[in-house]
């Protein structure tokens, strides 16, 4: 499964990559990482990922707008929002735009793996 990670924090990008690209997750291939929504759209168009982890609060273009644009390009893409914004309205807004899952920060390795498996299991 081809993965794109979108987050303005280098620490979080690195952490998600380490967890999801671990040897035990033998099916995940990291295509790229983006620091904001604009970079993400460019990488998304070039590489056609099947799974995207998406932060919400980012400079340039936020995660809700980015999710909407990605779904316009590929409605079948699995977008997992990974955000600290823990009000219900934000989660609902992202899901309405086409995200398929929502994981709150801070998260443990297990939380992320569980969310990933729930999203990608047939």
């Amino acid at each position, binding site marked *: 499964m081809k993965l794109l990670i979108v987050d303005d924090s280098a620490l979080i990008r690195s952490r998600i990559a380490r967890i999801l690209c671990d040897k035990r997750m033998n099916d995940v291939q990291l295509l790229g990482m983006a620091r904001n929504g604009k970079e993400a759209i460019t990488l998304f168009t070039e590489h056609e990922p099947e799974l995207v982890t998406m932060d919400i609060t980012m400079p340039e273009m936020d995660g809700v707008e980015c999710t909407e644009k990605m779904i316009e390009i590929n409605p079948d893409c699995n977008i997992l929002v990974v955000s*600290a914004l823990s009000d219900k309205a934000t989660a609902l807004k992202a899901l309405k735009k086409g995200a398929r899952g929502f994981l709150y920060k801070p998260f443990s390795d297990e939380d992320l793996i569980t969310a990933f498996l729930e999203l990608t299991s047939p």
Partner: protein
Amino acid sequence: MSAINEKDILIFVEAVSNFFFQITQEKVEIKTAYLLEDDVPSATFDLTSYITLSGGFTGRIYFSAPHSMLTHLLLVMGEQNRSDERLLDAAGEIANTISGNARKHFGETMEISVPTSQTTKSNWLKTVVSPRSYVILVKWKHYRASVVVDIQRAEQK
């Protein structure tokens, strides 16, 4: 403008405790006080990151910590890169997470910015915050850090 109260501060205390527990699986010791009015030791450490609020709130939420604590946290998180840049990024992510988690209580009208992170000298926070700012003093292992909550509800139109 209307001030937030001590009950509101508990939301931030919970967010800070939850952050450290989720990342380290350890409980932190926490004390709260007014930054400028109470006899608080310096709440400013080597690196400070803040989030600016807009929408239904104004002000800032700060997280300040020493290099040594952030380096240890990165180690716990399995992060190989422990450069100064990555430590600032970590401070920003903690400020962002605490602020974002608080929206569960304050709602989506509490709009939060991306973090601004910088190196800071002793007492810097006391020179930039308003008189009734709250400080949450955090002790994890032998390290100390602080979260300063300097926010107000904006007038409703």
